[in-house]
């Protein structure tokens, strides 16, 4: 199979990359990261090997954009610990659960990334290790620790019909 039209890549993987960006960067920066990721991917696409793992390739690009965005945020002069609760000012109905983002943003960056890449992008730990640096076991541990914390800090998802399990 030859390289597919890029439109098909956007169609197949766009939603996954958006979820990953949202989990890693939160609602505010996610869409910029998505745009930068797909523009960079479009630029490099003709050189992509035919047998490449497209998912891992896209997440690797998104990861670099996320690291850049995180650094940029850290350089911003006025920092708040956490974005205060506020009603959506964008009027976008798709703005997702702020509680989940609050719980995710409380995780150490590496854990948050490992969780997103494993649970939302379905990447195996070896791929995640290649992206984050470090060993496969370290990637697995980061994801496990992250998800464990998330299960306790983000109670909403672990309750069914309002009842905590």
């Amino acid at each position, binding site marked *: 199979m030859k390289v*597919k039209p890029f439109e098909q890549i956007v169609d197949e993987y766009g939603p996954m990359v958006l979820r990953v960006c949202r989990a890693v960067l939160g609602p505010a920066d996610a869409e910029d990261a998505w745009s930068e990721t797909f523009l960079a991917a479009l630029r490099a696409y003709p050189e992509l090997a035919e047998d490449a793992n497209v998912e891992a390739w896209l997440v690797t690009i998104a990861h670099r954009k996320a690291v850049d965005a995180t650094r940029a945020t850290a350089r911003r002069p006025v920092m708040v610990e956490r974005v205060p609760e506020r009603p959506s000012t964008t009027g976008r109905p798709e703005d997702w659960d702020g509680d989940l983002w609050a719980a995710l943003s409380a995780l150490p960056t590496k854990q948050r990334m490992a969780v997103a890449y494993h649970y939302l992008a379905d990447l195996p730990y070896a791929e995640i290790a290649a992206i984050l640096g470090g060993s496969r076991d370290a990637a697995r541990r980061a994801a496990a620790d992250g998800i464990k914390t998330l299960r306790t800090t983000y109670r909403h998802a672990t309750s069914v019909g309002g009842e905590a399990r």
Partner: protein
Amino acid sequence: MMTIHENDDRNLFDALPAIDFDASKRLHIELVSAAQREGLLDVAYRTMDTPVGELLLAGTERGLVRVAFAGQGHDKVLASLAATISPRILRAPDRLDEVARQIEQYFSGRRRTFDLPLDWRLSRGFRLNVLSHLPDIAYGRTASYAEVAAVAGSPRAVRAVGTACATNPLPVVVPCHRVVRSDGTSGGYVGGVEAKATLLNLEAA
């Protein structure tokens, strides 16, 4: 293998929509304009409904490069454009607005000739020679394969004219439907004989 436990953990992310249609649409529009700004949109395409079915229109920065009928398989056509021109292909309807406008005018009988920049890169040699002569056949008229062969400078290449028409990358706009058999019957057509009849009837009206 995914364990039940892991499945359970995945549910933690239910608040994140699997597909966020509004955001996807917005981001796609932004991607197209950024790609265009950076010169990364090598092939733009769109589809449009016409009396001969849904047409695929594809253009490069040089002009319209491909028109395809539904029966030709739009996905297949896009895959071949990816292989022959560039895989930097995006659905970008706006970039083909003018093409769609003229085709619509043509089908409503308000336009007889197309005034569009054409990118001929998918045709070569004798076929290109044949195709570039087709716009000379006036609206509402027909010419035989033999006549076109003569005009193209190879009177005996009747069969090759048939092949050139059958592989016309720009049907409708480059009027290969106006080429018919010497006995007056319509002959084959890339979009099927019915489409050819529709186009000839439209022009005869």
